């Protein structure tokens, strides 16, 4: 296929991957759409034990985005491996399994228990701002990012992609540390830590005080951080943050991403996202481009 790209030793039919936490395990969208039009899905973030998630308000709109405070509600790795994975494993899609944790040991144990599932890429989430268990503490310092990456590298043979937080000073340094720790790829950005106050009640909206901002509002920041990361590391990058259409996908590829993830835009106009692969193909024809790989990192 025209829009296919090589990612590590994998072939994606197109560079569009559904972003973790916005697409569940793909089963709901599959009721309405041909989800195999996508290049891949990053499944809802898993933790060692099941989690009920945060209490109180979990979503708040902003003019060009939304804040979420889901707090990693998920069934836990065992239920995923025994009940969910068997139902979804045969899809003609690249499967990304996203894992979060609170301590090094909970990460490693979660990853071990998933190891017998034949999924394609492990996305190590060291960037969830919504819970202590989200591991953002690991992702905001180069040293700890390298340490956890190395430990995971020694625990599993899976392709290892580390998902980084934008809530850091020097993203290039952290990406480099992950590369040094043995990461095969980097994905970024997770949500931007944010906050809302209800002036009527004079209260903070979220029980957890801060929440994660996603959607078009964060796109320019995400693009800048993908660019900085691409300049810092040699391993491939999956870029994300506020992407809604084919032109924006192209921007992320030009900034240095080999593929992208799309999340919040599914809530706005899912039809439009499933049309992006066809739009990319049209764009390539118009520009006389044979492979999307020609434009990766050209700026």
């Amino acid at each position, binding site marked *: 296929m025209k829009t296919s790209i090589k990612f590590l030793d994998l072939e994606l039919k197109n560079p569009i991957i559904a972003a973790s936490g916005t697409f569940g395990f793909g089963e709901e969208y599959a009721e309405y759409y041909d989800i195999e039009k996508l290049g891949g899905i990053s499944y809802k973030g898993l933790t060692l034990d099941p989690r009920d*998630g945060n209490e*109180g308000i979990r*979503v708040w*709109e902003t003019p*060009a985005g*939304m804040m979420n405070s*889901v707090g990693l509600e998920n069934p836990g790795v065992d239920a995923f491996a025994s009940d969910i994975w068997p139902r979804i494993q045969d899809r003609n899609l690249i499967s990304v399994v996203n894992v979060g944790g609170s301590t090094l040991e909970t990460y490693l144990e979660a990853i071990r228990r998933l190891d017998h599932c034949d999924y394609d890429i492990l996305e190590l989430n060291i960037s969830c701002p919504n819970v202590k268990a989200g591991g953002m503490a690991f992702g905001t310092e180069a040293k700890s990012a390298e340490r956890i990456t190395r430990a995971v590298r020694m625990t599993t043979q899976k392709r290892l992609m580390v998902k980084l937080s934008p809530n850091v000073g020097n993203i290039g340094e952290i990406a480099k540390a992950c590369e040094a720790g043995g990461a095969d790829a980097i994905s970024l950005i997770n949500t931007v830590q944010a906050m809302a106050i209800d002036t009527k009640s004079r209260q903070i909206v979220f029980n957890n005080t801060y929440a994660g901002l996603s959607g078009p509002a964060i796109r320019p920041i995400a693009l800048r951080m993908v660019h900085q990361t691409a300049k810092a590391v040699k391993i491939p990058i999956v870029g994300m943050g506020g992407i809604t259409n084919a032109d924006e996908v192209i921007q992320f590829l030009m900034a240095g991403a080999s593929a992208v993830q799309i999340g919040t835009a599914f*809530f706005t106009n899912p039809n439009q996202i499933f049309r992006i692969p066809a739009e990319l193909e049209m764009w390539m024809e118009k520009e006389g481009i044979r492979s999307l790989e020609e434009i990766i990192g050209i700026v």
Partner: protein
Amino acid sequence: MGVEGTEGNVLSIQEVGEEIVHLTVATPTTPKPGQFYLLRAWQEAPLLGRPISVFDYSEGKVEFVFKVVGKGTEILAKLKVNDKLQLQGPFGNGFPEVEGKILLVGGGLGNAPLHATAKALKARGQEVDLRLGFAEKVYLEEEFNQAATITQLMVGGLVTDGLNIRDYDVVFTCGPHPMMEAVVKMAREAGIPSYVSIEKRMACGIGACLVCTCKTKSGNKKTCKDGPVFEGEEIFYEDKYQIS
């Protein structure tokens, strides 16, 4: 089909009360009573669609009644006949099909889904009474009167006052939470089952994002997919219910 953001055409739109709008849209989709659609009549912003319940439906069209409370409903209220809007849905479980004599208790905009529900039950030949509370003025009086066997429309006061819940086999309720809680309690004391339709902020509307999670007696449920209708006892238990 389904979520395929079908484009709808506005067939009619009227202000039927203070900031209360009655909107009829052409759509090939057929909802069940108690289901909702995500509506949007704008491009990028606001980001999310607005969940609005089905007030009525018939071949080729769906009707909504909503209150203007913010940006989204403001834009929806300004639609004109023949304007286009996006309808995603119908979503949610809707009210169950039950037997016997049914009471529907509503308050505020919770009255809207009960209209469609009463009509459907009545069409099945069931005895169904509607008891609805309005904040200031009754709107769509004729529609509500025709929807049920007996309709009582009240302005101000408590719809639960003087209610003879023991005359019924099942009660459905939708409206402000203190009202629903009171109805569930009365049903419990009368020993009859109750069903409530609840509201939570939503994003995807189909059960994928978990921003609408509702804590129930039997664990977390997705309001958009497992609900918005739940057994009253699942939601209002041990005074633990917290809405946000």
